[in-house]
Structure formats: structure tokens, C-alpha cells
């Protein structure tokens, strides 16, 4: 009999009844994923976080499980920016009912804060920021500013 998974991982993360499992997060990005989902230390959600887990796909990965929360399309888009290989499993009654691969969209509306303080999207106007994704860089369609590093810190 082969060793069951939970034994190998020492029950690192227990299964959840309902909610979302975000797997294959680039190691070290788990806390950023939580931040962009708006989950802070005072959350009442039941969370499991595993970091630097051995993975067959990449060297090491992070895993986040959130009970009783299903991610929206917007949330998935944001995660794609910092964890392009992540997979999102929606769990109901202990079963994976949907498996979503993340994909960085061509256009990001209201997801990124422009790093140019002179950009009109940073003033009190009734607009969403608008970024085009080109070669992994983010191009502000209002001011032409390009964000190429530290993308996690520009996510709203």
C-alpha cells in the first residue's frame, strides 16, 4: 500500500467542505494572494496556508485554502498577475466542482493602481484604471506609464 498523501504532508492542509483551494502558487506569494483577495489577519474565514510545499510541477509551491468563499472572475484575474501557474479549485461538499486555470487577461480594469502620480486615473474621477498587458508588463492606457516590476504592490 502506498503512503497516502496526507501522511507524506503530515496533514499539512486538511480538506475543506466548501470553499476555494488555490494551488500551485509561486512559493512565497501566498500572503500576497491573500492580500489581494482582501483577506487580512482579522478575517473570520477559516484559512489554511501552506508555503514551500514540495511540488511535482515546480520546485516549491504555496497553497491557500479558504472555507466558504468562492472567488469571482476579478479575483482570479488578480491572482493571475502574481501567480500565473495557479489553479483554482472550487469545492462544494468536499468535491472539486470546478477547476479554473488562471490566465492573465489582455485588459485589466480597476485592478491596478497606476504608479504615475500625475495620471488622471489616480485622481478623484469616476473611472477605473485601465491597463493593457503587453509581454508581462502593464501599460496604463491613460498615461502610457509602464509597470514592469513589483506588480503585487500595484494591485488594488
Amino acid at each position, binding site marked *: 500500500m502506498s503512503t497516502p498523501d496526507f501522511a507524506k504532508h503530515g496533514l499539512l492542509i486538511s480538506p475543506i467542505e466548501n470553499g476555494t483551494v488555490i494551488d500551485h502558487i509561486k512559493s512565497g506569494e501566498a500572503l500576497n494572494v491573500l492580500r489581494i483577495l482582501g483577506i487580512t489577519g482579522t478575517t473570520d474565514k477559516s484559512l489554511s496556508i501552506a508555503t514551500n510545499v514540495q511540488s511535482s510541477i515546480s520546485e516549491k509551491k504555496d497553497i491557500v485554502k479558504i472555507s466558504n468563499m468562492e472567488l469571482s472572475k476579478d479575483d482570479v484575474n488578480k491572482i493571475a498577475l502574481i501567480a500565473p501557474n495557479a489553479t483554482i479549485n472550487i469545492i462544494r461538499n468536499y468535491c472539486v466542482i470546478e477547476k479554473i486555470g488562471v490566465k492573465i487577461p489582455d485588459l485589466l480594469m480597476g485592478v491596478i493602481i497606476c504608479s504615475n502620480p*500625475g495620471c488622471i486615473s489616480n485622481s478623484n474621477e469616476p473611472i477605473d484604471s485601465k491597463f493593457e498587458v503587453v509581454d508581462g508588463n502593464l501599460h496604463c492606457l491613460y498615461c502610457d506609464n509602464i509597470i514592469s516590476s513589483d506588480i503585487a504592490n500595484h494591485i488594488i
Partner: protein
Amino acid sequence: MRHIISIKDFGRDEIDALLEKAAKIQKLGSYKRTLEGKLVALLFFEPSTRTRMSFTSALARLGGDPITVDSVEGSSISKGETLADTVRVVSSYVDAIVLRHPKEGAALLASEFASVPVINAGDGAGQHPSQTLLDLFTIKENMPLDGIDVGLLGDLRYGRTAHSLSYALSNYDVRLHTIAPKSLEMPAGHMSELKKRGVEVIEHQGLEEVINDLDVLYATRIQRERFPDSASYSRVANTYRITPDTLKDVRENLILLHPLPRAGEISPEVDALPYAKYFRQAQNGIPVRMAMLEEVML
């Protein structure tokens, strides 16, 4: 509805068509009052007397009338009203809006909320398409836009006129020479964008090493406030001082352009030489802006 927001929205054919329209207008003068009865709001959220006068003059020559806001301070516009609301309201008064604004991207935002065409008359350090079109117009008045060597001199880091012109020229077969001190070189992002568009860009620091190989020298102002102290400013400012002596071995057809105002880059003795085209360039703003106004309103 046609807006004019950024020179990047224009392909070569569109640029050529607008320049041809401007040339026709210039030849015939204000021959017909094509915009008779049309009202245009000149919304200037930051002062720019020349640009405003140039648009006002262009409009008047086409028979249209301007509505201007003399001072944005003290008007409801500065009382916390959003630009989006302002252009929505103003749209119902006029047939087009000419906008000058200190924030980058303001013109694009305005075009998203306005129900009339918007012409960008400069937004922050962003776009200023009428300047670029009149720069191109002036070059074209003197030589074809293909097969030429163009030098861009001065503050290429912050200078939006040089960025915008270089972008527009990437539609043509030109060789670009950037001439700037180390601290004011063209931003890497802009440089790679030009190269991606297939433009040959050659970087220089000294003007003397390249000036005799140019057909166009586009000089821009170096702003004193970009430098840590006045000594380092004057070192650079003096390097790029163009005098009759600087021009003694240049190509016969060289033209010297400058978006003006100048701050010592070109000495006044140069004004009388045939190379000096910067005042003509300013004058060309009228037919070019007439063409732009007709383009969006007719």
C-alpha cells in the same frame, strides 16, 4: 465621433491626410468659413497662452466662435467638480472641446465622457498632438519625411514634444539621433518602443559629433530645475548652445526647429540664417489646428 487625443492613434495615412489638408488650408487662407455658427470650448486647466491663442485664431479663421474659461481657479471647475462632470456639462453648450490639463490621460478621460469631439491641447507630461503635427508639417514643407536624418536635442527624458515627434516619425523611414546629457537621455521604455517599431536610433552626447549629418535638428529646452545645482546646469546648457559657428559645416538643407520658448539653446544671431525655421514652425500651428478643428467637426 472623431477625437484627437494622441499622435499614437494616427497611422501614416491619417497623418499624411491631415498634413495635406493643412497644406491646402494654408495655400488658400481662410477662404471659407466652414465652421460658421460652431462653438468650441477652450478648457484650459493650466495656462498656456500660446496654445490657446493659436487654437482661438485657427477657430476664428474658420468662422467658429470660442467659449473660454478665463480662470479655472474660482470657477466651479476648481470647486472639486470632476473633469468627467465638467466635460459632460460643457458638451451640451458646444460643438467641440479643446482641452489642456495638468494630468496625464485627462484628454482620454474627457473623450470618454464628452458627447462632442475632444481635441487634446496637452495633458500633463503626456500627449500634445497638435504640436507634433505642426512639427511634421514644418519638416514636410522643407523636405520629404522619408530618408532623412533627424536629431533630437536637449531634454529627452521629460520632453514630451520630442517623445511624441519621435513616435510620429516612426511611421516614416527616418534615422533618429538623440543628443542629450546622460541625466536627460530618452527613457529606456520609449527607446525600446521606437526600436520595436523598426526605427534606427543612434545615441549621442555631443552635438558637434552629429550636426553635420543632419537634415533636421529639433532642439528642446533644458529646464534648470532638472539639475541639482546651477553649475551643472550651465555646463550642459552651454554645450548645446547653437550659434552661427556651430552651423558652419552643416548640410545645406538643414532645418532647425524648436517648440519654443527657447532658453539659450539657440542664439538670436541664428534667427537670420536660412536654417532657422522655428518661427515659421509656430506660424504653421494655425493651418494645422484649422485642419484638426475641421477634421473633428465637419
